[in-house]
């Protein structure tokens, strides 16, 4: 199970990073969200995978590690704030620059820039 879990986390991170490297802001925000899912799962897994033993006292004998859970809980909420900020910034960028490309101009090509 750990292997499957790790593969999922790695795959999600790869997809998230790939989308983040695209040029348009909305795609970037989607990539960011995907990456934050992956990171949350990653952090969560640092406490090991436990089934049927939530960290609520006297509910079972062997508890899941509560510390990563507490960290991830706040990370989820902060991640939402970050996604929101990024998307609003992207909107603002589009409003001010007239383009939703991260560089402010469509398909910025450093090579053509140098030639001119």
């Amino acid at each position, binding site marked *: *199970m*750990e292997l*499957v*879990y*790790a*593969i*999922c986390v*790695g795959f999600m*991170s*790869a*997809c*998230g*990073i*790939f*989308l*983040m*490297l695209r*040029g*348009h802001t*909305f*795609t970037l*925000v*989607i990539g960011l969200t*995907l990456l934050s*899912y*992956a990171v949350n*799962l990653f952090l969560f*897994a*640092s*406490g*090991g995978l436990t*089934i049927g033993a*939530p*960290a*609520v*006292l*006297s509910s079972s004998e062997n*508890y899941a590690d*509560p*510390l990563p*859970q*507490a960290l991830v*809980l706040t990370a*989820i909420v*902060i991640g*939402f*704030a970050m*996604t*929101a*900020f990024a998307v*609003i910034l*992207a*909107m*603002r960028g*589009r*409003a001010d620059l007239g383009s939703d490309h991260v*560089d402010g101009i469509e398909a*910025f*090509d*450093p090579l053509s820039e140098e030639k001119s």
Partner: protein
Amino acid sequence: MHYFWVPFLPMLGIIVPLLTNKLNRSACALATAVLPALALCLIFLDLPAVFAGESFSKSIEWIPQLGLSLSFRLDGLTALFSLLILGIGLLVILYARYYLSEKDHMGRFYCYLIMFMTAMLGIVMSNNMLQLWFYWELTSISSFLLISFWSHNSAARKGARMALTITGAGGLALLAGIILLGQVVGSYELDVVLNSGELVKQSPYYLAILGLFLIGAFTKSAQFPFHFWLPHAMAAPTPVSAYLHSATMVKAGIFLLARFYPVLAGTDVWFVVVSLTGLFTLLLGAYSALFKHDLKGLLAYSTISHLGLIVLLLGLNTELAAIAAIFHVMNHAVFKASLFMAAGIIDHESGSRDMRKINGLWKYMPITATLAMAASASMAGVPLLNGFLSKEMFFAETLNQSILGAMSWLIPVLSTMAGAFSVAYSLRFIHDVFFNGEPKGLPKTPHEPPRYMRVPVEILVAICLLVGIFPQATVGPLLQSASLAVLNHSLPEYSLSLWHGFNLPLLMSALATMGGVAIYLNRKHLFKFSGLFPDIDAKIVFERCIQASVNWAKNITMKLETGSLQRYAFCLCFFALLLIAPPLFDLDMTKGSLPGTPINGAVLISAILIIAGSLATIIWSHYRLIALLMLSLVGLVVSITFAYFSAPDLALTQLSVEIVTVILLLLALYFFPQQTPISRSRPSHFVRDLAVAAFIGCIIGSICFALMTHPLDSISEFFIANAKTGGGGTNVVNVILVDFRGFDTFGEITVLGIAALGIHKLIARMRLSMRIKDYDGRPWAKDKYPILLSVVSQSLLPLFLLISAYIFMRGHNLPGGGFIAGLITSIALIQQYLAHGVDWMAKRVSVSYHYMIALGLLTAGLTGLGSWIFDRPFLTSWFEYVSLPWIGKFELASALVFDIGVYFTVIGATLLILASLGKLTTKERLTVGER
């Protein structure tokens, strides 16, 4: 011992001139002089012990691990330099009192001057090398301020910049050398370092250390090829030239060579580099000085030449030569300072420093002329003056070496030649200025200076004479103790007297004098000859070099900084990859020793859903709505994953955040094109990005796997054991959030609030064009608020609020808590916005979400502060079980109040974000002027 206070007195004195500036000029000068004079007295008190051959040091440790300490020493060399610095410094203060005009800011000048004095004293008295370096750089900075004192003058600004660049860069080299030396020796204290000469010379780093030290010393002491800054520093007021550029600062490099003589000298490399640099500088300076028409220019090149002479002596590797070097340091400081002061008087009283104009001044200022003539005779090395003695010793020592083998005779011959040139320029100084016809076109009629302006010159010339006639009685003990400090062991035999009989050095002196006279008589031809060479202005060359290096740096910056965020993002990911990959290679196996959990169908299906969802997000990323739906699918499976792996709190949070995120992105999508245009970026970029993303994914996956399968020591046991007894709750995750790690949570809700406010401000100034149609040209639906949704959501609202209250209340003991409850409440309210529209909500909900955030943070913060009342640390929690009739026994906890703060902050932030965004299309929208 009193010496420890010496460096601190001038340091205190820096502020004195600024305080007394308002008083009259003499009072200001007098007040400025008090503390340095006191310091001089303290040195005098300690002199007998120093003459007895003792040396003292005292340290106060600061950061012993780094070798940093406040550490001062007093030995012969220190005493000699301190006397020069304080003595000539006091004379310069007196001189500057008359030199500076009414327009100059006297307090500031003295302030800089005393700052320089402090720095210089620090260099010579430091017993710690790092501390020495600190003072070394301080002299560069204060000399910059002093050279550019007349900042309205472009030459002064440029000269100051040049001096700072050269000496500052040399200082950095010196720092590197000091650190290397400190590492080799194992200590930065001079007491230790000076006795580790053999260790250093055998170290493989010896050459590097020597090179770095020499760069430091040569830049400071204006040795070839760094000599060019000194003539340009002559744009400084003359008291500065007299003090810094003849007597003290340029001697700092010499001091460095002398101080580290026991450590660095004695090798062949030292001899070749140091003596040849000195010899070349000696010749170059002496030759160039002859052709300068500017009085101060002549003196500047003469200073360069004399510094070369001292460096040459130090480079000769014989003990007697080192003694001669020390002797010449004193003599040169005395006669050159007096010459600069005389030049300043001439400039001040005749209005020009051009030797082609100022002629025949003997008639106008006979006393000054006599003094200047005596001093320049000393510079030329005429008997009965101090310059003669050290020059004799110098000639004797040049004969006394043989390292250049068969060519060793070159050194005395070239030295005699340089001696001849120095006689020639000294003659020029005397003859051109004081005789040679009448003044031509001077702005004012020259006359004698004010009485006290001449006093410093008189004192210095008297010293020249006294030392020249009675050397042993005047400076014998001082020279002896200083030489002892330099050589660091017993002294060789030497005799300090005027007459040594007819010998070779005397013949060389005679030859030099005759040669000098001959050169001067034939000066017309020589001037014509030197006129054949183009006049290279070091200032222009230097500025050009600086400009070139600026351009070079700019080019590199432009190459790295293309302005493309996409490229930066790639670089960031790429270097992150490079940084996180290597540690993994140290791990033998990805799989650790922990037994794995068996896989089952549900997990497999979830995994397939996650992978398929992520893949679909990428594949359909051009169709933004579909990509968003796929993303939310992944998000839902993630929350199921949390639920499955015993994290109900996370599952609830993820689920509610997922809803809020999707609503947010949908709202945002309204303002974006619904499709991403097909990118015109090159295929190679596509492959490149894919490769980096895949590699990072592999690495993260491997780390994740390794993390889960390796045994782990966790501090979680503590939280589980203490959640009930210490925090009063059974839901350990919630207890961690509101109690154990409450301060973290407090920080996090603060971040949340700040993000929301930032978004609010971004939206407030947004100017967006509203689309009437969607991307495919279809108009948006007209019926904005479907009646069914309105009715259902309105009736669901109380239920939602009830659930959130329940989730909140049980949070301490069962899954739930402020974060989740806050999100559920937000969703309920957003649903009302969606179902009824902003206008409808605006009529009913009058609360401002800013205040809600503030209220939440305040509640959480005050709960934390509350524990101070009970004398406990911030955010210490308190809980008690109380029994009430009807309800039964229940728990009251301060953590609950903190959680209320979290609850309100989350609601405020979420709604502020979403409502501001939703309002964009309505008349409730924020405008610039609002709030």
